[in-house]
Protein backbone atom coordinates (compact mmCIF):
# COMPACT_ATOMS: atom_id res chain seq x y z
CA UNK A 1 0.00 0.00 0.00
CA UNK A 2 2.69 2.50 0.88
CA UNK A 3 4.05 2.43 -2.69
CA UNK A 4 0.62 3.23 -4.14
CA UNK A 5 0.10 5.93 -1.51
CA UNK A 6 3.47 7.49 -2.34
CA UNK A 7 2.66 7.48 -6.07
CA UNK A 8 -0.81 8.90 -5.37
CA UNK A 9 0.70 11.76 -3.37
CA UNK A 10 3.28 12.44 -6.09
CA UNK A 11 0.46 12.70 -8.62
CA UNK A 12 -1.31 15.25 -6.45
CA UNK A 13 1.83 17.23 -5.63
CA UNK A 14 3.38 17.12 -9.09
CA UNK A 15 0.20 18.46 -10.71
CA UNK A 16 0.23 21.50 -8.46
CA UNK A 17 4.02 21.92 -8.64
CA UNK A 18 4.29 21.87 -12.41
CA UNK A 19 1.20 23.99 -12.99
CA UNK A 20 2.34 26.39 -10.27
CA UNK A 21 5.68 26.77 -12.00
CA UNK A 22 4.08 27.26 -15.41
CA UNK A 23 1.70 29.92 -14.12
CA UNK A 24 4.59 31.58 -12.29
CA UNK A 25 6.37 32.01 -15.64
CA UNK A 26 3.94 34.88 -16.28
CA UNK A 27 5.20 36.85 -13.31
CA UNK A 28 6.23 40.27 -14.56
CA UNK A 29 5.15 39.77 -18.18
CA UNK A 30 1.34 39.34 -18.08
CA UNK A 31 -0.75 41.60 -20.35
CA UNK A 32 -1.94 43.87 -17.51
CA UNK A 33 -0.88 44.36 -13.91
CA UNK A 34 -4.05 42.90 -12.38
CA UNK A 35 -3.66 39.70 -14.39
CA UNK A 36 0.00 39.49 -13.50
CA UNK A 37 -0.88 39.66 -9.81
CA UNK A 38 -3.74 37.19 -10.18
CA UNK A 39 -1.52 34.65 -11.94
CA UNK A 40 1.24 35.03 -9.36
CA UNK A 41 -1.29 34.58 -6.56
CA UNK A 42 -2.64 31.39 -8.09
CA UNK A 43 0.87 30.08 -8.63
CA UNK A 44 1.57 30.78 -4.98
CA UNK A 45 -1.49 28.83 -3.84
CA UNK A 46 -0.45 25.90 -6.03
CA UNK A 47 3.12 25.89 -4.72
CA UNK A 48 1.79 26.06 -1.16
CA UNK A 49 -0.40 23.03 -1.83
CA UNK A 50 2.62 21.29 -3.36
CA UNK A 51 4.58 21.77 -0.14
CA UNK A 52 1.87 19.92 1.78
CA UNK A 53 1.44 17.09 -0.73
CA UNK A 54 5.15 16.48 -1.30
CA UNK A 55 6.01 16.74 2.40
CA UNK A 56 3.50 13.99 3.06
CA UNK A 57 4.80 11.98 0.08
CA UNK A 58 8.35 12.24 1.40
CA UNK A 59 7.25 11.14 4.85
CA UNK A 60 5.32 8.14 3.47
CA UNK A 61 8.29 7.17 1.34
CA UNK A 62 10.45 7.15 4.47
CA UNK A 63 13.79 7.45 2.74
CA UNK A 64 14.81 10.70 4.33
CA UNK A 65 13.93 12.87 1.33
CA UNK A 66 12.21 16.22 1.85
CA UNK A 67 9.52 17.97 -0.20
CA UNK A 68 12.30 20.14 -1.66
CA UNK A 69 14.33 17.06 -2.63
CA UNK A 70 11.33 15.63 -4.45
CA UNK A 71 10.66 18.89 -6.27
CA UNK A 72 14.20 19.85 -7.16
CA UNK A 73 16.17 16.62 -7.52
CA UNK A 74 13.99 14.26 -9.54
CA UNK A 75 14.33 14.00 -13.30
CA UNK A 76 11.50 14.12 -15.84
CA UNK A 77 10.72 10.38 -15.79
CA UNK A 78 10.08 10.45 -12.04
CA UNK A 79 7.40 13.14 -12.28
CA UNK A 80 3.78 12.03 -12.04
CA UNK A 81 1.85 15.10 -13.20
CA UNK A 82 -0.70 14.89 -15.99
CA UNK A 83 0.52 16.09 -19.39
CA UNK A 84 -1.96 18.98 -19.42
CA UNK A 85 -0.17 20.97 -16.73
CA UNK A 86 3.27 20.78 -18.36
CA UNK A 87 2.05 22.19 -21.67
CA UNK A 88 3.61 25.58 -22.46
CA UNK A 89 1.78 28.78 -21.58
CA UNK A 90 1.23 29.89 -25.19
CA UNK A 91 -0.67 33.16 -25.24
CA UNK A 92 -2.67 34.47 -22.30
CA UNK A 93 -5.83 32.76 -23.60
CA UNK A 94 -4.12 29.39 -23.83
CA UNK A 95 -2.83 29.76 -20.26
CA UNK A 96 -6.32 30.52 -18.99
CA UNK A 97 -7.84 27.66 -21.00
CA UNK A 98 -5.32 25.24 -19.51
CA UNK A 99 -6.11 26.67 -16.10
CA UNK A 100 -9.84 26.21 -16.56
CA UNK A 101 -9.46 22.63 -17.84
CA UNK A 102 -7.36 21.76 -14.80
CA UNK A 103 -9.23 23.83 -12.17
CA UNK A 104 -12.53 22.15 -12.95
CA UNK A 105 -10.97 18.71 -12.47
CA UNK A 106 -8.96 19.87 -9.47
CA UNK A 107 -12.05 21.16 -7.67
CA UNK A 108 -14.00 17.92 -8.19
CA UNK A 109 -10.99 15.89 -7.10
CA UNK A 110 -10.39 17.95 -3.95
CA UNK A 111 -14.07 17.96 -3.00
CA UNK A 112 -13.99 14.17 -3.06
CA UNK A 113 -10.64 14.05 -1.24
CA UNK A 114 -12.09 15.94 1.73
CA UNK A 115 -13.80 12.59 2.48
CA UNK A 116 -10.58 10.58 2.14
CA UNK A 117 -10.06 7.73 4.62
CA UNK A 118 -6.59 9.21 5.17
CA UNK A 119 -7.12 12.07 7.64
CA UNK A 120 -4.05 13.98 6.56
CA UNK A 121 -5.05 13.89 2.91
CA UNK A 122 -8.55 15.03 3.86
CA UNK A 123 -7.07 17.94 5.85
CA UNK A 124 -4.86 19.13 2.96
CA UNK A 125 -7.81 18.83 0.57
CA UNK A 126 -10.05 20.84 2.92
CA UNK A 127 -7.45 23.60 2.93
CA UNK A 128 -6.83 23.54 -0.83
CA UNK A 129 -10.46 23.26 -1.91
CA UNK A 130 -11.19 26.81 -0.74
CA UNK A 131 -8.38 28.22 -2.83
CA UNK A 132 -9.23 26.16 -5.88
CA UNK A 133 -12.90 27.18 -5.73
CA UNK A 134 -11.64 30.71 -6.17
CA UNK A 135 -9.28 29.71 -9.00
CA UNK A 136 -12.09 28.05 -10.92
CA UNK A 137 -14.37 31.04 -10.46
CA UNK A 138 -11.76 33.22 -12.08
CA UNK A 139 -10.59 30.89 -14.84
CA UNK A 140 -14.15 30.06 -15.94
CA UNK A 141 -15.12 33.77 -15.90
CA UNK A 142 -12.07 34.62 -17.99
CA UNK A 143 -12.63 31.79 -20.48
CA UNK A 144 -16.19 33.04 -20.93
CA UNK A 145 -15.11 36.68 -21.23
CA UNK A 146 -12.49 35.90 -23.86
CA UNK A 147 -14.59 33.35 -25.74
CA UNK A 148 -17.52 35.76 -25.78
CA UNK A 149 -15.27 38.74 -26.58
CA UNK A 150 -14.04 39.82 -29.98
CA UNK A 151 -13.68 37.57 -33.02
CA UNK A 152 -9.92 37.61 -32.37
CA UNK A 153 -10.22 36.53 -28.72
CA UNK A 154 -12.85 33.93 -29.60
CA UNK A 155 -10.69 32.41 -32.29
CA UNK A 156 -7.65 32.29 -30.00
CA UNK A 157 -9.67 30.56 -27.28
CA UNK A 158 -11.03 28.06 -29.78
CA UNK A 159 -7.49 27.36 -30.98
CA UNK A 160 -6.40 26.88 -27.35
CA UNK A 161 -9.27 24.50 -26.70
CA UNK A 162 -8.51 22.49 -29.85
CA UNK A 163 -4.91 22.18 -28.74
CA UNK A 164 -5.50 21.38 -25.06
CA UNK A 165 -8.68 19.30 -25.09
CA UNK A 166 -6.83 16.09 -26.06
CA UNK A 167 -4.87 16.48 -22.81
CA UNK A 168 -8.00 16.63 -20.63
CA UNK A 169 -8.83 12.93 -20.96
CA UNK A 170 -5.78 11.73 -19.03
CA UNK A 171 -7.18 13.21 -15.81
CA UNK A 172 -10.01 10.67 -15.86
CA UNK A 173 -8.04 7.52 -16.62
CA UNK A 174 -7.99 5.09 -13.70
CA UNK A 175 -4.92 2.87 -13.54
CA UNK A 176 -3.84 0.11 -11.08
CA UNK A 177 -2.12 2.63 -8.76
CA UNK A 178 -5.34 4.63 -8.58
CA UNK A 179 -7.38 1.48 -8.01
CA UNK A 180 -5.30 0.48 -5.03
CA UNK A 181 -5.86 3.90 -3.45
CA UNK A 182 -9.54 3.88 -4.44
CA UNK A 183 -10.05 0.52 -2.75
CA UNK A 184 -8.45 1.86 0.42
CA UNK A 185 -10.91 4.79 0.34
CA UNK A 186 -8.05 7.26 -0.06
CA UNK A 187 -8.97 8.85 -3.39
CA UNK A 188 -12.04 9.02 -5.62
CA UNK A 189 -11.94 6.87 -8.75
CA UNK A 190 -10.84 9.46 -11.36
CA UNK A 191 -13.19 8.00 -13.99
CA UNK A 192 -16.20 8.80 -11.78
CA UNK A 193 -15.42 12.52 -11.95
CA UNK A 194 -15.79 12.67 -15.71
CA UNK A 195 -19.56 13.22 -15.97
CA UNK A 196 -19.64 16.13 -13.55
CA UNK A 197 -16.60 17.60 -15.34
CA UNK A 198 -18.19 17.34 -18.78
CA UNK A 199 -21.43 18.95 -17.53
CA UNK A 200 -19.61 21.86 -15.96
CA UNK A 201 -17.24 22.34 -18.90
CA UNK A 202 -20.07 22.25 -21.42
CA UNK A 203 -21.88 25.04 -19.57
CA UNK A 204 -18.79 27.24 -19.66
CA UNK A 205 -18.06 26.47 -23.34
CA UNK A 206 -21.64 27.29 -24.28
CA UNK A 207 -21.46 30.71 -22.61
CA UNK A 208 -18.04 31.23 -24.19
CA UNK A 209 -19.24 30.26 -27.70
CA UNK A 210 -16.63 27.55 -27.88
CA UNK A 211 -16.85 23.88 -28.78
CA UNK A 212 -14.39 21.14 -27.90
CA UNK A 213 -13.03 19.21 -30.88
CA UNK A 214 -14.81 15.98 -31.75
CA UNK A 215 -13.48 12.57 -30.84
CA UNK A 216 -12.24 10.99 -27.66
CA UNK A 217 -8.53 10.85 -28.38
CA UNK A 218 -6.52 11.54 -25.24
CA UNK A 219 -2.76 11.81 -24.80
CA UNK A 220 -1.44 9.83 -21.85
CA UNK A 221 1.78 8.96 -20.09
CA UNK A 222 2.16 11.85 -17.65
CA UNK A 223 0.63 10.56 -14.44
CA UNK A 224 2.23 7.14 -14.89
CA UNK A 225 5.54 8.75 -15.84
CA UNK A 226 5.69 6.45 -18.86
CA UNK A 227 6.10 9.26 -21.39
CA UNK A 228 6.05 12.94 -20.58
CA UNK A 229 5.93 15.47 -23.39
CA UNK A 230 9.22 17.13 -24.35
CA UNK A 231 8.11 20.28 -22.52
CA UNK A 232 8.60 18.88 -19.03
CA UNK A 233 12.37 18.52 -19.37
CA UNK A 234 12.69 22.10 -20.56
CA UNK A 235 10.57 23.28 -17.64
CA UNK A 236 12.77 21.39 -15.18
CA UNK A 237 15.94 22.98 -16.55
CA UNK A 238 14.49 26.32 -15.42
CA UNK A 239 12.86 25.18 -12.18
CA UNK A 240 15.72 23.05 -10.92
CA UNK A 241 18.80 24.84 -12.26
CA UNK A 242 19.81 26.38 -8.94
CA UNK A 243 19.98 23.04 -7.10
CA UNK A 244 21.61 21.42 -10.12
CA UNK A 245 24.28 24.11 -10.47
CA UNK A 246 24.85 24.62 -6.74
CA UNK A 247 23.87 21.35 -5.04
CA UNK A 248 22.59 21.86 -1.50
CA UNK A 249 22.41 25.66 -1.83
CA UNK A 250 20.25 27.14 0.92
CA UNK A 251 18.13 30.30 0.83
Amino acid at each position, binding site marked *: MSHALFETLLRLGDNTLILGHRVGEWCGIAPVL*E*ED*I*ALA*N*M*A*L*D*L*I*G*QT*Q*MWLALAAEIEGKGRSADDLAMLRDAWDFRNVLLVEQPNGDFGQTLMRQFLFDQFHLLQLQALTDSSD*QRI*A*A*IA*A*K*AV*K*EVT*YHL*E*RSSDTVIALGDGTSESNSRMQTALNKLWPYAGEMFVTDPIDLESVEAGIIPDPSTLRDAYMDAAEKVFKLAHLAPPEGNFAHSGGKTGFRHSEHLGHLLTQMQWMQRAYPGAQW
Partner: protein
Amino acid sequence: MTASVSQVWQWLDQVPDPEIPVISVVDLGIIRDVSWDEDTLDVAVTPTYSGCPATTVISMDIETALRDRGLEKIRIRTQISPPWTTDWLTESGRAKLEKYGIAPPSPGGGPEKCPQCGSKRVSKISQFGSTPCKAHWRCDDCLEPFDYFKCI
Protein backbone atom coordinates in the same frame (compact mmCIF):
# COMPACT_ATOMS: atom_id res chain seq x y z
CA MET B 1 10.59 31.06 32.90
CA THR B 2 6.88 30.34 32.47
CA ALA B 3 3.83 32.53 31.96
CA SER B 4 0.10 31.90 32.16
CA VAL B 5 -1.64 30.91 28.94
CA SER B 6 -3.79 34.05 29.07
CA GLN B 7 -0.65 36.15 29.46
CA VAL B 8 0.81 34.51 26.36
CA TRP B 9 -2.37 35.28 24.40
CA GLN B 10 -2.01 38.93 25.40
CA TRP B 11 1.59 38.97 24.21
CA LEU B 12 0.62 37.35 20.94
CA ASP B 13 -2.06 40.00 20.47
CA GLN B 14 0.81 42.48 20.21
CA VAL B 15 2.51 40.61 17.34
CA PRO B 16 1.50 42.37 14.12
CA ASP B 17 0.72 40.59 10.88
CA PRO B 18 3.78 41.34 8.72
CA GLU B 19 1.71 42.22 5.63
CA ILE B 20 -1.10 44.08 7.40
CA PRO B 21 0.64 45.46 10.49
CA VAL B 22 -2.50 47.15 11.79
CA ILE B 23 -3.93 43.81 12.97
CA SER B 24 -2.32 41.24 15.24
CA VAL B 25 -1.88 37.54 14.60
CA VAL B 26 -4.62 36.98 17.20
CA ASP B 27 -6.99 39.36 15.36
CA LEU B 28 -6.29 37.40 12.20
CA GLY B 29 -7.48 34.23 13.90
CA ILE B 30 -4.43 32.17 12.98
CA ILE B 31 -3.39 31.26 16.53
CA ARG B 32 -5.33 28.06 17.13
CA ASP B 33 -3.97 26.96 20.47
CA VAL B 34 -1.58 27.96 23.23
CA SER B 35 -0.64 25.39 25.85
CA TRP B 36 2.17 24.24 28.08
CA ASP B 37 3.67 20.84 27.46
CA GLU B 38 5.68 20.48 30.67
CA ASP B 39 8.29 23.26 30.33
CA THR B 40 7.72 23.86 26.60
CA LEU B 41 5.22 26.39 25.31
CA ASP B 42 3.30 24.97 22.36
CA VAL B 43 1.73 27.44 19.91
CA ALA B 44 -0.41 26.10 17.08
CA VAL B 45 -0.54 28.39 14.06
CA THR B 46 -2.68 27.87 10.95
CA PRO B 47 -1.75 29.38 7.58
CA THR B 48 -4.22 31.72 5.92
CA TYR B 49 -3.45 30.58 2.35
CA SER B 50 -1.30 27.51 1.73
CA GLY B 51 1.29 29.47 -0.23
CA CYS B 52 1.24 32.68 1.79
CA PRO B 53 4.89 33.76 2.07
CA ALA B 54 4.07 35.60 5.31
CA THR B 55 3.52 32.28 7.14
CA THR B 56 7.23 31.68 7.80
CA VAL B 57 7.78 35.28 8.84
CA ILE B 58 4.80 35.06 11.20
CA SER B 59 6.24 31.98 12.92
CA MET B 60 9.57 33.75 13.32
CA ASP B 61 7.90 36.91 14.65
CA ILE B 62 5.93 34.89 17.21
CA GLU B 63 9.02 33.10 18.39
CA THR B 64 11.00 36.36 18.63
CA ALA B 65 8.23 38.09 20.57
CA LEU B 66 7.96 35.26 23.08
CA ARG B 67 11.74 35.04 23.51
CA ASP B 68 11.82 38.79 24.14
CA ARG B 69 9.39 38.17 27.02
CA GLY B 70 11.82 35.69 28.51
CA LEU B 71 10.35 32.38 27.31
CA GLU B 72 12.95 29.89 26.23
CA LYS B 73 11.39 26.62 25.19
CA ILE B 74 8.92 27.37 22.44
CA ARG B 75 7.44 25.04 19.87
CA ILE B 76 5.60 26.61 16.92
CA ARG B 77 3.40 24.02 15.29
CA THR B 78 1.61 24.34 11.95
CA GLN B 79 -1.94 23.07 12.12
CA ILE B 80 -3.90 22.99 8.86
CA SER B 81 -7.11 21.39 10.07
CA PRO B 82 -9.72 22.79 10.39
CA PRO B 83 -8.72 25.20 7.61
CA TRP B 84 -8.53 28.90 8.37
CA THR B 85 -11.61 30.91 7.59
CA THR B 86 -12.19 34.65 7.64
CA ASP B 87 -14.93 33.93 10.22
CA TRP B 88 -12.04 33.72 12.70
CA LEU B 89 -11.12 37.38 12.25
CA THR B 90 -11.99 39.09 15.51
CA GLU B 91 -14.49 41.97 15.64
CA SER B 92 -11.70 44.33 16.65
CA GLY B 93 -9.62 43.00 13.75
CA ARG B 94 -12.41 43.77 11.30
CA ALA B 95 -12.79 47.29 12.66
CA LYS B 96 -9.02 47.90 12.49
CA LEU B 97 -8.89 46.67 8.89
CA GLU B 98 -11.64 49.04 7.83
CA LYS B 99 -10.05 51.98 9.59
CA TYR B 100 -6.78 51.13 7.78
CA GLY B 101 -8.55 51.25 4.41
CA ILE B 102 -9.09 47.53 3.81
CA ALA B 103 -12.71 46.43 3.48
CA PRO B 104 -13.31 43.49 5.85
CA PRO B 105 -14.61 40.18 4.46
CA SER B 106 -18.31 39.91 3.86
CA PRO B 107 -20.27 36.74 3.09
CA GLY B 108 -21.96 38.54 0.18
CA GLY B 109 -18.84 37.91 -1.92
CA GLY B 110 -17.76 41.54 -2.04
CA PRO B 111 -17.20 44.50 0.28
CA GLU B 112 -20.23 46.03 1.98
CA LYS B 113 -18.99 49.55 1.43
CA CYS B 114 -16.02 51.68 0.49
CA PRO B 115 -13.67 51.86 3.50
CA GLN B 116 -12.83 55.48 2.58
CA CYS B 117 -16.18 57.22 2.01
CA GLY B 118 -18.70 54.56 3.02
CA SER B 119 -20.45 54.45 -0.36
CA LYS B 120 -22.14 51.17 -1.25
CA ARG B 121 -21.46 51.70 -4.95
CA VAL B 122 -18.34 49.62 -5.42
CA SER B 123 -16.99 47.49 -8.24
CA LYS B 124 -14.42 44.75 -8.58
CA ILE B 125 -11.19 45.45 -10.43
CA SER B 126 -9.54 42.08 -9.88
CA GLN B 127 -10.28 38.93 -7.91
CA PHE B 128 -6.70 39.01 -6.63
CA GLY B 129 -4.77 41.77 -4.91
CA SER B 130 -1.49 42.67 -3.26
CA THR B 131 -1.49 39.59 -0.98
CA PRO B 132 -3.14 36.16 -1.32
CA CYS B 133 -5.87 37.17 1.16
CA LYS B 134 -7.06 40.27 -0.70
CA ALA B 135 -8.90 41.30 -3.86
CA HIS B 136 -8.79 44.65 -5.61
CA TRP B 137 -11.92 46.87 -5.69
CA ARG B 138 -12.82 50.46 -6.48
CA CYS B 139 -15.39 52.90 -5.13
CA ASP B 140 -17.67 54.27 -7.86
CA ASP B 141 -18.34 57.45 -5.86
CA CYS B 142 -15.02 58.62 -4.43
CA LEU B 143 -13.17 56.65 -7.16
CA GLU B 144 -10.53 55.40 -4.71
CA PRO B 145 -9.24 51.90 -5.34
CA PHE B 146 -9.07 49.75 -2.21
CA ASP B 147 -8.19 46.29 -0.96
CA TYR B 148 -10.93 43.89 0.04
CA PHE B 149 -10.13 41.05 2.43
CA LYS B 150 -11.48 38.00 0.59
CA CYS B 151 -14.05 35.91 2.39
CA ILE B 152 -13.07 32.25 2.68
